[in-house]
């Protein structure tokens, strides 16, 4: 799925995350999280797997996480990508 425009999904509420997706020549993922030290690798691999499932090969993905569970991460990323792939 192509990232055609900037989009967001999610909130800054506790146990949620906010995702900002925008077009970029390569795939870049930036993660801010209250639990970054312990869980950044898990958050990152969940985001990467979700993007791969959606066929996203390029784009700038910024995540501000407040301790979301992995299915919430997948859902928010998927929503942001769907919004970003519509003209």
């Amino acid at each position, binding site marked *: 799925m192509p990232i055609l425009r900037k989009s967001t999904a999610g909130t800054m*509420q506790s146990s949620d995350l906010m995702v900002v997706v925008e077009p970029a020549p390569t795939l870049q993922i930036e993660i*801010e999280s209250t639990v970054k030290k312990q869980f950044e690798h898990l958050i990152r691999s969940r985001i990467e797997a979700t993007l791969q499932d959606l066929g996203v090969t390029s784009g700038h993905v910024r995540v*501000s996480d407040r301790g979301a569970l992995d299915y919430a991460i997948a859902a928010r990323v998927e929503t942001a990508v769907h919004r970003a792939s519509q003209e």
Partner: protein
Amino acid sequence: MFDQPTEREAQELIESLGLRFEPGVDDWAGFYDNGRLAACGARKGYVLKMLAIAPEFQGTDTLGALVTRLILSGLAAGHETLFLFTRPQTASTFEALNFRILATHGTAALLEHGPGFEAYLAAHPAAPGRNGAIVLNGNPFTLGHLHLAEHAARQVDRLYLFVVSEDCSVFPFAARLAMARAATAHLPNVTVLETSRYAVSAGTFPAYFLKRRDEAALAQMRLDLDLFAGRIAPAFSILRRFAGDEPLCPATRAYNEAMAEVLPGDGVAVSILPRFEAGGAPVSATRVREAFAAGDFQRLAALVPPSTLQFLRSDEARPIAGRLRSPLKGA
């Protein structure tokens, strides 16, 4: 439920919590409980302010919802990174929302959310060494600036010349940056950089642009200097900051005084040099702007380097002279 509060409702809530209300923002977010405003916050440009939550809603996730609103509002306005002023004792509440502390001083803390300072450093790789810095507005770049830069460049391995990025001055940022680059091109160890929002910006030091002198201005000045000493100086190996003494502008003079007071305690030495003089009077950007507004190029030639003079004679500079002559002239 969320709705846009009226300024009066917001002011009442903000002042009831002992915070200062400042009118003139771009966006308000308000959270209502049974028709009563329970929480609010505002955004002005890339700065979030006046976040206020009634006591019975503190500790709930009202703040998370409020911040979500304001971040979305900021993103929609094109601001990836947002600044926030708060009290130091509430800074940790915002750290839990992925804000990072940039600086604290006394009663104020400055935080940011987004790619921010890390992205700025990644875009401006620093040289190791015993380096120095000048932060200047260069509105426009004068012989005084040039002499200061030449003197400073001789004292250090590399001199970082930070040009204030904020477009609050009569000469636009791109022109101020170009003038600083052209005037110092002959100095091989000078690097001209934008300050982005990390020195003397509307985010760190809004009062600078208003030429205000009160408690708030003093607090902002110290916050700005704390950010310089705590973040910029270590990142660019800056051991000394240089400035020209300021005989004319009271705001800049107060900033110089605060600099000499604050920075040495944080490991950054301060050198304040006597102002370069021409024709028996100190050269300052204020004087240059006066001569430029009057179209007195003969006087200008004694006050600015040839590269600045060339810019002032260009078509690009003509509308600026017009603005300087208008009654609402920019500083």
